[in-house]
């Protein structure tokens, strides 16, 4: 851990340097502000929240449903903007993130902070006023968790950062469910758990082939602190939990045959790819990690799409 901290001191530019351009008039375009909201991450958040909303019991008026999804999307965008504001120093030294609006100098840190805070408060208040306060409370907690617990505290402190921080990404289907029902059901908790356990193998697969970047930035990701072999072992362990967990909505009777077939087949593929990562070494291990990372995105999308399909098929028959 001390090595990581020293690395951070050497490589990461001071926050004062990043805000040196604060006196300059803004050159930010509308596109830069949209980029600040991480639209690709937002799309997965919207999709999982949509599934939470649609599979919940009862009927939601389409306008209320749309409003809930809009607020969840804006809340996710706000969290992303605040994350980029706080992490601008480490983003600047990582190849993957160096072109983001703040390190690239297109948006000043203060602008991103104001933008993120305005959107966060606006999304939570709007969700509370127009949908319900349980969903709004969950959205507020999710933003708080992602920014304060994950970004400010855990990310630079422990290799368990994305394990615990993964909870922030797991909340959207629960918020969607709460928007529809005004409460929290067991089914929404299962959806939360699936994303929560999915996050470590997903992120660690990425960090296996981006370890140099994280080390340069002083972020104690598992491959940096514990090494690639331990990371591969933990990827397999989490996937061993994830594969059966993915089938629990069916096992508990909340989903039908389409979901059962999809979750079992996709779980088996995830396990196979995780095993390849576990047994791959050196340069041969990188393609395996890339394949697992790519499939993990598809895995989550498939599971949630199957849940949605099952609900529609069940409703039609």
């Amino acid at each position: 851990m001390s090595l990581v901290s020293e690395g951070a001191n050497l490589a990461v530019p001071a926050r004062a340097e990043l805000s040196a351009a604060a006196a300059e008039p803004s050159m930010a375009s509308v596109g830069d502000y949209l980029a600040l909201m991480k639209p690709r991450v937002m799309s997965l958040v919207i999709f999982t929240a949509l599934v939470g909303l649609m599979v919940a019991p009862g009927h939601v008026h389409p306008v209320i449903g749309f409003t809930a999804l809009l607020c969840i999307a804006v809340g996710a965008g706000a969290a992303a903007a605040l994350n980029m504001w706080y992490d601008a120093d480490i983003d600047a030294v990582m190849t993957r993130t160096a072109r983001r609006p703040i390190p690239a100098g297109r948006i000043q840190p203060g602008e991103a902070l104001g933008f993120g805070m305005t959107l966060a408060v606006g999304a939570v208040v709007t969700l509370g006023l127009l949908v319900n306060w349980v969903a709004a409370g969950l959205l507020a907690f999710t933003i708080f968790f992602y920014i304060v617990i994950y970004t400010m505290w855990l990310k630079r402190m422990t290799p368990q950062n994305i394990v615990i921080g993964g909870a922030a990404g797991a909340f959207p289907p629960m918020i969607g469910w709460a928007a529809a029902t005004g409460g929290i059901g067991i089914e929404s908790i299962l959806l939360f758990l699936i994303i929560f356990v999915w996050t470590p193998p997903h992120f660690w697969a990425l960090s296996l082939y981006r370890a140099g970047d994280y080390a340069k930035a002083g972020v104690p990701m598992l491959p940096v602190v514990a090494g690639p072999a331990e990371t591969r072992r933990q990827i397999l362990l989490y996937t061993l939990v994830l594969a059966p967990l993915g089938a629990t909505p069916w096992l508990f009777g909340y989903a039908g045959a389409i979901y059962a077939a999809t979750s079992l087949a996709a779980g088996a593929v995830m396990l196979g790819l995780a095993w390849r990562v576990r047994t791959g070494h050196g340069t041969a291990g990188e393609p395996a990690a890339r394949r697992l990372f790519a499939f993990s995105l598809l895995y989550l999308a498939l599971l949630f799409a199957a849940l949605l399909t099952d609900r529609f098929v069940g409703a039609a028959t």
Partner: protein
Amino acid sequence: MDDRSPDDGIVLTEEQKRRRRARSIALAVALGALAILFYVVTLVKGPGVLNRPL
């Protein structure tokens, strides 16, 4: 009108003015959309809009 000296303070370039205008328009559209959203939800909820148990 363009006879200001550097002592007059910050003078925006044409590109900065163009981007500021684009940001202003985007902000106006977002605020307009928000007003429409509140209006439509009020219509959808009807009298129940005042019934918001905590």
